[in-house]
């Protein structure tokens, strides 16, 4: 007893990191807890908190307990920038978030300038194309997933023309541009290109335009609620063409909100709780037991993010941010090593992620995994 | 004869078939205090608004020191040397009495730009102080105008009308709502100002005692036309006027 106190005093006197901080490792989670992105940010945050509790229960990272500070960006880019700075000031070793690309593009400048590794849930292609050595994704950028969709449209459906419905913000614009580029590359004609606003209520005119284009397929890249509204309107106006989408469109939330209108839509998802993998199923169960709602891909991104952080720090072997960032580049985590990483995953030198993904179809209110696509 | 300050020539104005003013003409000379009276609905306000350029008469014209006022905006009229007071309280309530008076004078000093780069009081503090002490408001100089009593605000309103050294001042019911003691003070100050500066006044007022003792000449309107004109004594004795007020 006496000894410990003396030791602590000595440590404090010599200015060596205090006893408390030797036992905990602070991470910052900057996410969209309010504002339009609240749904997304809350799922992301809940999964991170669950991951932290599991990691701590299993002994922590490098023998230290993780402590997570959460900051609400209000889905505002400038606030997120300030809060990333605040998290760093508060001593966060590594930053998780944000999910919205509009925020990430801004706040990743801060972590870059100060050399702090950041694991984000954003999917805008530009994030990993700016040469930022500290930013890493936990899910695909749109430029990774679009080729998979293009291949399916071309080879699977034999489509010669396609109509696109996208939401006019960073998320939608990024996906739209990547998609259109792939279509050009494969010689599929984009016959209708319809943008919509976040929070748009009336999709009648969008659907009228999509319908009158008579395309072989319709590609949808909207947020969850707008996807549901669009699907309902597509069904109402009796649109027959196959509807194809990326992760968001095939989200459980869309299926639930569109009340049957999602039946038959197909698409590509990077992460889905409906995948038949035992790890993913176990995660989905733990999550819904704990929070009372079904996990979605945003929750999975958050979960992967916290396990990525923990694994990278563990592998770097010491609390050196540069070393952690270096470890993350060209790193691979397998499910055998870390079951909770859910799927085998690799990062390239830009921080872009690569792993298997899924081709799914909605049947009734179930998402059925039709095919497993290899990592690219 | 002395110089004509305000000249009203054959003004007529009707609203939807009702002839509010019919063919009214008169002149007002320098240094005069002219009272414009008449029972309710006699056309005083309509005539007043024609003089102020706010209403366009159907026929006739108004000139102030020889210039036509037709179509002039209030601020342009002010530049022509016409000051006025309002029937309702019309001060700037959230500004000090001093600022009220400086504002009343500043637009007549220099150009827009010289005012921006010149002194913040546009060089008017002294003059405003003179005006304040003339109306015996010295103790209220730095109070907010809106916090003054009704009568005091009426005094500030009147003082503002004089800040630009106008040739003609139109007083719209200056006595309305002012208590007796304050009324005497107001009347005496107006008279003194008129005497000292030879400023021409036109007064619309319902308080006959006030009008009779302030004005040098009175014009009586009834049903849109002039029915009498003369000194207060003459008007007081005029049976047509008495009938107009009591009704036939």
């Amino acid at each position, binding site marked *: 007893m006496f000894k410990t106190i003396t030791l602590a005093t000595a440590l404090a006197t010599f200015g060596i990191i205090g006893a408390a901080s030797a036992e905990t490792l602070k991470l910052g989670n900057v996410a969209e807890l309010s504002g339009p992105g609240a749904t997304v940010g809350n799922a992301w945050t809940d999964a991170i908190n669950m991951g932290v509790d599991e990691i701590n229960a299993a002994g922590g990272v490098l023998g230290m307990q993780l402590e997570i500070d959460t900051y609400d960006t209000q889905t505002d880019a400038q606030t997120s920038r300030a809060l990333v700075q605040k998290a760093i000031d508060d001593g966060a070793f590594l930053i998780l978030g944000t999910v919205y690309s509009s925020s990430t593009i801004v706040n990743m400048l801060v972590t870059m300038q100060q050399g702090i590794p950041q694991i984000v849930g954003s999917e805008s292609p530009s994030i990993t194309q700016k040469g930022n050595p500290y930013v890493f994704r936990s899910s695909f950028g749109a430029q990774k997933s679009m080729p998979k969709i293009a291949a399916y449209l071309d080879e699977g459906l034999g489509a010669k023309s396609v109509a696109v419905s996208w939401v006019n913000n960073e998320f939608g614009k990024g996906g739209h541009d990547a998609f259109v580029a792939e279509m050009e590359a494969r010689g599929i004609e984009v016959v209708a290109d319809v943008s919509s606003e976040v929070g748009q209520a009336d999709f009648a005119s969008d659907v009228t335009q999509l319908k009158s284009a008579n395309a072989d397929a319709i590609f949808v890249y909207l947020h969850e609620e707008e996807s549901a509204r669009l699907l309902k309107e597509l069904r109402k106006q009796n649109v027959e063409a196959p509807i194809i989408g990326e992760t968001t469109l095939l989200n459980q939330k869309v299926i639930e909100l569109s009340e049957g209108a999602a039946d038959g839509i197909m698409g590509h998802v990077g992460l889905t709780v409906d995948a038949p993998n035992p790890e993913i199923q176990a995660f989905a169960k733990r999550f819904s037991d704990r929070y009372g709602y079904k996990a979605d891909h945003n929750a999975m991104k958050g979960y992967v993010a916290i396990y990525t952080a923990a694994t990278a720090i563990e592998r770097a072997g010491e609390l050196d941010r540069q070393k952690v960032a270096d470890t993350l580049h060209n790193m691979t985590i397998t499910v055998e090593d870390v079951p909770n990483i859910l799927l085998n995953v690799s990062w390239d030198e830009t921080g872009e992620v690569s792993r298997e993904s899924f081709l799914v179809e909605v049947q009734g209110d179930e998402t059925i995994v039709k095919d497993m696509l290899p990592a690219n | 004869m002395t110089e004509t300050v305000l000249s009203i020539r054959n003004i007529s104005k009707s609203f939807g078939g009702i002839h509010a003013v019919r063919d009214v003409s008169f002149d007002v000379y320098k240094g005069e205090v002219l009272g414009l009276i008449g029972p309710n609905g006699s056309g005083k306000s309509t005539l007043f608004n024609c003089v102020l350029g706010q209403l366009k008469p159907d026929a006739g014209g108004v000139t102030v020191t020889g210039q036509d006022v037709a179509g002039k905006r209030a601020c342009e009229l002010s530049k022509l040397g016409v000051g006025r007071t309002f029937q309702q309280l019309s001060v700037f309530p959230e500004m000090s009495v001093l600022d009220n008076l400086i504002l009343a004078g500043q637009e007549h000093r220099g150009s827009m730009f010289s005012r921006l780069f010149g002194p913040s009081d546009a060089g008017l503090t002294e003059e405003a102080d003179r005006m304040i002490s003339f109306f015996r408001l010295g103790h209220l100089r730095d109070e907010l105008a809106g916090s003054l009593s009704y009568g005091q605000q009426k005094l500030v309103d009147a003082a503002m009308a004089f800040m630009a050294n106008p040739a003609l001042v139109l007083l719209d019911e200056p*006595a309305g709502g002012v208590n007796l003691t304050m009324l005497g003070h107001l009347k005496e100050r107006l008279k003194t100002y008129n005497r000292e500066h030879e400023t021409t006044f036109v007064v619309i007022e319902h308080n006959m005692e006030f009008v009779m003792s302030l004005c040098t000449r009175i014009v009586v309107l009834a049903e849109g036309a002039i029915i009498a004109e003369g000194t207060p004594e003459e008007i007081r004795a005029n049976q047509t006027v*008495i009938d107009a007020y009591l009704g036939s």
Partner: protein
Amino acid sequence: MLQLKNLYGGYGKITILNGVEFEIPKGTITTVIGPNGAGKSTVFKAIFGLLNVHSGQILLEGRDVTGRTPKQMIGEGVTYVPQGRNVVPQLSVYHNLELGGITARDQSAVRARIEKVMDQFPMLREFRDRKAIELSGGQQKQLEVARALLLDPKLILIDEPSIGLSPNLVAEVFRTLQALRDDGVTILMVEQNAKAALAMSDFGIVLELGQTRMHDRADALLADPRVGQLFLGGHMEEA
């Protein structure tokens, strides 16, 4: 019928009534005259509960009704026709009349009463479906007077009914008022057109500077030379 005792009142900072006192008997027409700013309209507002009474009392048939709301005064059988235009512009003539009886429980009685009032004012029947704003000034005033009759009031306060009316309409309004008096209604009126008003009234009251200066039979006031002088700025001796 109505008695005012030493009434003081006004708007905010300004006191306009400085101890008004008078009493009017039932079933008569009394006209209040006086120069502008004497407080004539203010007295009406004070009686009808639209103005704060600082001190003094208003008695209606001996009951103290000081500080009642307009609605309560209507309940006491008093109606008020203010100065100026007071119709509801976008409603029809008929609906304007209905508003006169809006406080009554029994709306079928109100409808019956409207028919009766339209008999008294045939013009209203002719224009019953026009919007009130489309009537001429005189017609609007008649509408207002008619509206004030809907609840069969005991006492009507009328503020300057003659403004904007042609002389023959004024005479008509006055005749209507006299007929009402003959039916037992008490009328208190403010009028600029003092001569004509006194000529058709039973009593007259002269107000000046918020105080009662004279109170006499109408014909006596009409003959009094001091009344004419009062309008042109002479002061009156205490009456």
